[in-house]
C-alpha cells in the first residue's frame, strides 16, 4: 500500500492531472504569442516615427538651402539635418540587419516579421535609395567652417536679417566653400525631392506588414484562447461523461447484485439472518423468517429477545452460552456443532385462539469472517416440525409393533393353562374394579376405601402379568396404579376424580381381550397341528383358515382344569417369575415349591397373590447378588422355598429365602424417611416392632419405583389379604442368613370368600 495506490480513484486522478497539463500548455503558448504581440506594437510605433524621417531630412536640407541663400547662419540647421539623417540611417541599418529596432525605452527588439522575403526586398530597395541619398548628403554633412567670406560675414548677417530675402539673396556673397556647399545642397534637394516620398512609402509599407503580422497574431491569440476554452470544455465533458458512465455501470452492477440478493432472501426456504457481537439481528434477512417466527418486524431485535418468548429459561441460557462460545477464538466451530443446544429445539408459539402451538426449529450457526476477523454469525433456521413428528410417529409405531411381537412371543412361551388362568382371574379382578367404581360413595372415607379396594385388584393383576412376563399388560396395570397413587395423594376427593379410572379400566379390558383373542388363535393353531400329527401328516385346511381368519373354534373349550393342574400352574408361574426377576437383577435363584397342589379352591387366588408378592420381594430384597454371596461364603445361587401344607387347625404357607435377611437399620431409616415414624420413635423400636414396619402402607426399601419392586404396597397387600381370610402372618429373620414368612390360614370352611 502506498500513496500511489489510488484504487478506484486512479482514473479520476489521472484525468484531472491530464487536464491541468493541457491548461498549462495552452497558457504557455498564449504567453509566447502575447509577448510577440507587444513587440509588434513597438515595431509599428517605431516605423511610424521612422516614416516621417525622409520628409524631415528633405525639409531640413531645403531649409538649409534657404538659409544659405539668404546668407543666414547655417550651423544650427546643418545640425538639424545631420540629426535627422543620422536617425533615419540608424533606424534603417537596424531594420536591414535582422529587423532590430529600439523601442521607446531604448530596449532593442528583434522583429522577426521583417526577416520575411517581402520585407527584405523592400528594405533592400529602400537601403539602395537611401545609399544614394547618403552620397548626396555626405558633402553637405561634412561641411565645416563658414560658407560666407570672412569679412562680409559679420556685417552682412544683420543686414541680411533686416532686409527682404530676395534682396538679400541677390546680394549674398559666398566663400568658395560656400559655393560648393550650395551646389551640393542643390543636388541633394533635387535627389531628396525625388526620393523622400518613396522612402516614406517603404516605411509605411513596412509598418503595414508589421501591423498585418500583429493583426495575425491577435487573431491567432484569439483563436488559441477560443480553441483552448473549447478544448478544455470538451475534455471536461469527456471526463465527466466517462465517469458518469462508469458510475452508472457500477450502480447498475450494484443494483443488480442487490436485486439478486433480495430475490434469494425472498425465495429461500430457510430463515437466514446475521447476528453481530451484541446479538442484534441484521437488517438483511430472508422472508421465511417471518413465517418461522410468526412476526413481521425484527428491527432492533436481539437474538435472546427472539428466543425468550418461545423456549424455556434453561434452554435460552444454554443457547446464549453456546453463541458466546462461537464468538471466542479458542473454540473450533466444526467441533462444537454436536452440542448446539438449538440443533432441534422445541418451541411454543402463543396461539391467538388460545393455548399454544408446538414447533421444532433447527438452528445452525456459521462464523462470518471479513478481513481475517470475526464480524458476524450467520444463523440458519429451519422449521423441522414435520420431520420430528414423522420420526416420532415412526418410532412409536415401531415400539407398538415391537410390543405386539413381544406379547406374541411371551404368549408362545407361557403355558396356555397359566395364561388361561391369568385371563380368568384378571377378568374377575377387573369386573370387581368395575363394580367398586359403580358403588355409590359420598364421604371421603368411602372414596379412600374405594381406592384401596381397586388398588388391591389392579396390583394383583399387575403382579400376575409380571410373573407371566406379559409386559404390555403389566405396563397398563402399572399406569393404572400410578393414577390411583395420584388420587391417594390428594387432600380431598370427589366422584369426578374417578372418571379417568374408567378410561384406564377400559384400556385394560380391551387389551386383555386382545391377549385372549391371540391366545385363542394360538390354541387353535396348536390343535390344528396336533390333529395333523395324529392324522398322519394330514392338515385340516379348513381349520387353519378359520384360525387365520380369527374365528373361534366351534368345538367346545376344554373341560375346566382340576385344582391340581392350577396349582402346578402356579408353581410354573412362580418359577418363571423368580427366574425373570433374578435375571433382571443379575442374581441367581433356585426356587423350590412344595404342596401347592393341596391349596383348596377357596384359597387359590389369595395364595397365588401372596406367593407372587413374597417371591418377588425375596428375589429383589432378600437374595444378594452372586459377588456379595461369595464374599459371605454362600453359594452363588440363592435358594427360595415355597411350601404349603395342611395343619391340624388350618393351612400353613411358608416362603423362605437364604438371603441377607431383614436389615433392621435400613428399615428404620426408610420408615423415618417416609415419615412413618419419627427418629426418636425409631430409636425405641425393638427388632420385632421394626420388622412389623414393612407391613405398614407406603413402606418400601426399593430405592426406585419399578414394576419389579413396586412401591411397598406389596407387603401391605399381603397383610390385608391374610387378614381378610382371617389368617395371621409371622416373620422371622436373621441378619445375613435368611428371612422366613409364615402364614397361617384357617380351615377352608371358615374362610371368607376372596
Amino acid at each position, binding site marked *: 500500500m502506498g500513496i500511489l495506490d489510488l484504487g478506484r480513484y486512479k482514473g479520476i486522478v489521472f484525468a484531472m492531472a491530464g487536464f491541468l497539463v493541457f491548461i498549462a500548455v495552452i497558457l504557455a503558448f498564449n504567453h509566447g504569442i502575447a509577448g510577440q504581440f507587444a513587440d509588434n506594437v513597438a515595431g509599428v510605433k517605431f516605423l511610424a516615427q521612422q516614416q516621417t524621417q525622409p520628409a524631415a531630412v528633405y525639409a531640413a536640407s531645403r531649409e538649409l538651402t534657404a538659409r544659405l541663400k539668404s546668407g543666414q547662419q547655417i550651423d544650427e540647421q546643418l545640425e538639424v539635418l545631420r540629426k535627422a539623417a543620422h536617425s533615419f540611417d540608424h533606424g534603417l541599418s537596424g531594420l536591414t540587419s535582422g529587423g532590430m529596432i529600439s523601442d521607446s525605452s531604448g530596449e532593442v527588439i528583434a522583429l522577426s516579421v521583417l526577416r520575411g522575403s517581402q520585407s527584405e526586398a523592400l528594405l533592400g530597395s529602400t537601403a539602395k535609395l537611401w545609399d544614394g541619398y547618403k552620397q548626396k548628403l555626405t558633402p553637405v554633412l561634412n561641411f565645416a567652417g563658414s560658407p560666407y567670406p570672412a569679412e562680409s560675414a559679420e556685417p552682412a548677417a544683420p543686414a541680411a536679417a533686416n532686409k527682404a530675402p530676395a534682396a538679400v539673396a541677390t546680394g549674398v556673397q559666398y566663400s568658395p566653400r560656400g559655393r560648393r556647399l550650395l551646389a551640393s545642397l542643390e543636388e541633394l534637394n533635387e535627389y531628396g525631392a525625388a526620393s523622400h516620398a518613396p522612402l516614406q512609402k517603404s516605411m509605411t509599407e513596412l509598418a503595414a506588414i508589421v501591423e498585418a503580422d500583429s493583426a495575425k497574431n491577435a487573431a491567432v491569440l484569439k483563436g488559441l484562447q477560443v480553441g483552448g476554452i473549447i478544448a478544455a470544455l470538451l475534455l471536461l465533458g469527456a471526463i465527466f461523461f466517462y465517469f458518469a458512465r462508469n458510475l452508472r455501470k457500477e450502480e447498475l452492477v450494484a443494483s443488480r447484485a442487490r436485486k439478486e440478493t433480495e430475490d434469494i432472501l425472498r425465495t429461500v426456504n430457510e430463515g437466514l439472518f446475521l447476528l453481530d457481537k451484541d446479538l442484534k439481528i441484521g437488517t438483511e434477512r430472508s422472508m421465511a423468517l417471518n413465517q418461522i417466527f410468526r412476526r413481521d418486524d425484527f428491527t432492533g431485535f436481539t437474538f435472546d429477545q427472539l428466543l425468550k418468548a418461545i423456549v424455556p429459561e434453561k434452554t435460552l441460557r444454554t443457547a446464549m*452460552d453456546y453463541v*458466546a462460545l462461537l464468538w471466542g*477464538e479458542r473454540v473450533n*466451530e466444526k*467441533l462444537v456443532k454436536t*452440542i448446539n*443446544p438449538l440443533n432441534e429445539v422445541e418451541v411454543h408459539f402463543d396461539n391467538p385462539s388460545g393455548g399454544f402451538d408446538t414447533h421444532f426449529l433447527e438452528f445452525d450457526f456459521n462464523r462470518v469472517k471479513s478481513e481475517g476477523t470475526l464480524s458476524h454469525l450467520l444463523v440458519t433456521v429451519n422449521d423441522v416440525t414435520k420431520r420430528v413428528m414423522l420420526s416420532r410417529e415412526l418410532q412409536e409405531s415401531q415400539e407398538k409393533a415391537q410390543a405386539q411381537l413381544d406379547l406374541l412371543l411371551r404368549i408362545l412361551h407361557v403355558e396356555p393353562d397359566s395364561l388361561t388362568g391369568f385371563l380368568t382371574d384378571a377378568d374377575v379382578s377387573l369386573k370387581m374394579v368395575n363394580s367398586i367404581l359403580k358403588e355409590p360413595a359420598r364421604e371421603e372415607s368411602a372414596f379412600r376405601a374405594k381406592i384401596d379396594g381397586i388398588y388391591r385388584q389392579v396390583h394383583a393383576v399387575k403382579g400376575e402379568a409380571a410373573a407371566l412376563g406379559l409386559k404390555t399388560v403389566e405396563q397398563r396395570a402399572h399406569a393404572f396404579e400410578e393414577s390411583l397413587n395420584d388420587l391417594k395423594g390428594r387432600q380431598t376427593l370427589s366422584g369426578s376424580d374417578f372418571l379417568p379410572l374408567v378410561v384406564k379400566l377400559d384400556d385394560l379390558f380391551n387389551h386383555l381381550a386382545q391377549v385372549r383373542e391371540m391366545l385363542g388363535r394360538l390354541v387353535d393353531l396348536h390343535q390344528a397341528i396336533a390333529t395333523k400329527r395324529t392324522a398322519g401328516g394330514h392338515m385340516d385346511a379348513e381349520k387353519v383358515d378359520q384360525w387365520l381368519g380369527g374365528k373361534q373354534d366351534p368345538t367346545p373349550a376344554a373341560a375346566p382344569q382340576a385344582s391340581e393342574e392350577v396349582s402346578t400352574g402356579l408353581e410354573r408361574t412362580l418359577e418363571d417369575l423368580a427366574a425373570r426377576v433374578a435375571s433382571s437383577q443379575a442374581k441367581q435363584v433356585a426356587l423350590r415349591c412344595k404342596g401347592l397342589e393341596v391349596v383348596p379352591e377357596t384359597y387359590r387366588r389369595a395364595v397365588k397373590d401372596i406367593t407372587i408378592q413374597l417371591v418377588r420381594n425375596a428375589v429383589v430384597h432378600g437374595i444378594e447378588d452372586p459377588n456379595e454371596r461369595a464374599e459371605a461364603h454362600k453359594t452363588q445361587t440363592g435358594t427360595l422355598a415355597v411350601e404349603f401344607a395342611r395343619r391340624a387347625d388350618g393351612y400353613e404357607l411358608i416362603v423362605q429365602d437364604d438371603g441377607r435377611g431383614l436389615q433392621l437399620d435400613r428399615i428404620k431409616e426408610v420408615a423415618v424417611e417416609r415419615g412413618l415414624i419419627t427418629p426418636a420413635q425409631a430409636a425405641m423400636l425393638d427388632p420385632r416392632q421394626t420388622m412389623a414396619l414393612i407391613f405398614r402402607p407406603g413402606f418400601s426399601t426399593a430405592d426406585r419405583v419399578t414394576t419389579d419392586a413396586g412401591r411397598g404396597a406389596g407387603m401391605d397387600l399381603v397383610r390385608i389379604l391374610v387378614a381378610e381370610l382371617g389368617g395371621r402372618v409371622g416373620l422371622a429373620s436373621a441378619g445375613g442368613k435368611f428371612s422366613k414368612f409364615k402364614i397361617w390360614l384357617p380351615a377352608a370352611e371358615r374362610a371368607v370368600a376372596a
Partner: protein
Amino acid sequence: MAATAKAEPLTNGKLKLMICDDSNIIRRKIERELQIERLQVIATASNGKQAVDAFRKEPADVVTMDITMPEMDGIECVENLVKIKPDVLILVISALSDKATAIEALKKGANGFLCKPFTDRQLTEALEELLRGAGNDD
C-alpha cells in the same frame, strides 16, 4: 500458578498427546485407534488431579478430556490445564446427555467436542480438525 513446566518438543518433531478418561477402556481405545502420525501419546490420566500433575511435569500439546471423572472433573481440569499452558488444544470427549455441561467445559477453554460413543474414524477426524483449526488461527 507455580508452573515449572518446560514445554520441550519431542525430538521426533511430533505433537504430545495426553489422554484423560476415568474409563481405561476408553483410554485404551483412543491409544489403539489413534491414526494420526503427528501425535504421540506421552501420558494418560484417569482423573483430573492426575492429569494436572502429569501436565505440570510435562505439558502436552493436545489433550482428550472426559467430563465426569473422580477427584477433579473435566471442567475444572480444563481450567487448570489452560492456566498452565494457554495454547493447549483440548478435545472434550463425553456422552451427549447434558449439552450445558459440555458448553461449560468449552467456556473454560476447551476447543472442541466429540460425542461418546465414537468410532475410530470420528476420533481421527475430530483430532485432525482440532489441529487444523489451530493452524488457521496463526
